[in-house]
């Protein structure tokens, strides 16, 4: 890792449900369940098709890690994600006020 690497900014894109599920390594039914639990946001288009933000692939990975590693149930993970996000926000704020 000695050569300096340019890291391109993340692309903003959306996937349809099946494509998103495949990329996330998730069964489509499971993805539906995540949506129902409010863990991942689905964006319906006028035709009723569900679309997902590419950025939420990381969210799904996080959900699965927390579920597998800490045996948290999916409903509890919603709370954990909210708390972790809040901590992240507060940390950023603390960094900002320190500088």
């Amino acid at each position: 890792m000695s050569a300096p690497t340019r890291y391109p900014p993340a692309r903003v894109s959306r996937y349809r449900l099946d494509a998103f599920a495949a990329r996330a390594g998730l069964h489509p039914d499971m993805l539906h369940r995540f949506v129902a639990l409010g863990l991942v946001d689905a964006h319906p288009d006028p035709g009723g098709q569900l679309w997902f933000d590419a950025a939420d692939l990381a969210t799904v990975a996080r959900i699965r890690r927390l579920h597998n590693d800490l045996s948290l149930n999916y409903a509890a993970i919603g709370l954990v994600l909210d708390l972790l996000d809040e901590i992240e926000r507060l940390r950023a704020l603390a960094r900002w006020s320190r500088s």
Partner: protein
Amino acid sequence: MAADYYQVLGVSHDVSPEELQQAYRKLARRNHPDVNKDPAAEDRFKEINEAYHVLADPKLRERYDRYGSEFRSVPEGMDDQFAGAGARGRGAGRQRGQPGGGAGWAGEAGPFGSSGGGAVDLEDLFSDLFGGGRGAAAWNAGADQEAELELSLEEAYRGGRHRISLGPRSYEVTIPSGVVDGQRIRLGGEGGRGRGGPPGDLYLVVRIAPHPRFRLSGRDITVDLPLAPWEAALGAAVPVETPGGEAKVIVPAGSSSGRRLRLRGQGLPNPRGTPGDLYAEVKVMVPDQLSEAERGLFDELSRVSTFDPRRSR
């Protein structure tokens, strides 16, 4: 893993199963890569799981106690071990690194399995470590990590190459000129290793170390400007130190301590906009000891002057 499993979990050798689980749960929570952004946390987490996996299983624990960390390569018990829980773990482990493989759905770990009566909970816990036994997830993306990158103020001012070591990993990153405290530099794909899926990102959070002379606020820098009483009273052009070298500052006549003289654009550069300013803060100094001549002049000044700093403010 050469580390002592008891030490890894911080328990004594006669630990009870309940205490063992307690210690494990606490450590697992604290070091989980989604809770703890420290790049070293992921390896600790794996070690903790490995240690608990062995010590929580009475058979494995007995073998571990007897043979130490090499217990897996001791032939005798191999049959039992690989016929039982161990075999599943090893077999599933080989499935890592198959993103998109047909069997790679993350279902619910629980309902799929019916084997091993009381082991359901453990199964769930270890599905990550061993690539997910039974119908569970075979791969997953890695977590993002965060590490602090301490720079001196001069380094932040100039930018340039910087080497950073995180445990066994070492990176040479190019710091853009004019980073500010708290700014995050993203190294895509350098975070937690995924299981077959893409790795997470590593974020370096810039921390600008306190400087003996320069005080930093955002991009603005404040530096003391020591002046002799007559320079402060009469005005002067004096040199002032900036991170980019020496600059001249014009001190207007009648500058008391605390007056801030702005050198526009001499603070930290800003790659996307106006740079910060440098403030030279007047600090009037007097000689420790006066010569005869100086004493005479100050005496004369005190007789002539009507200035009272405690009234005329």
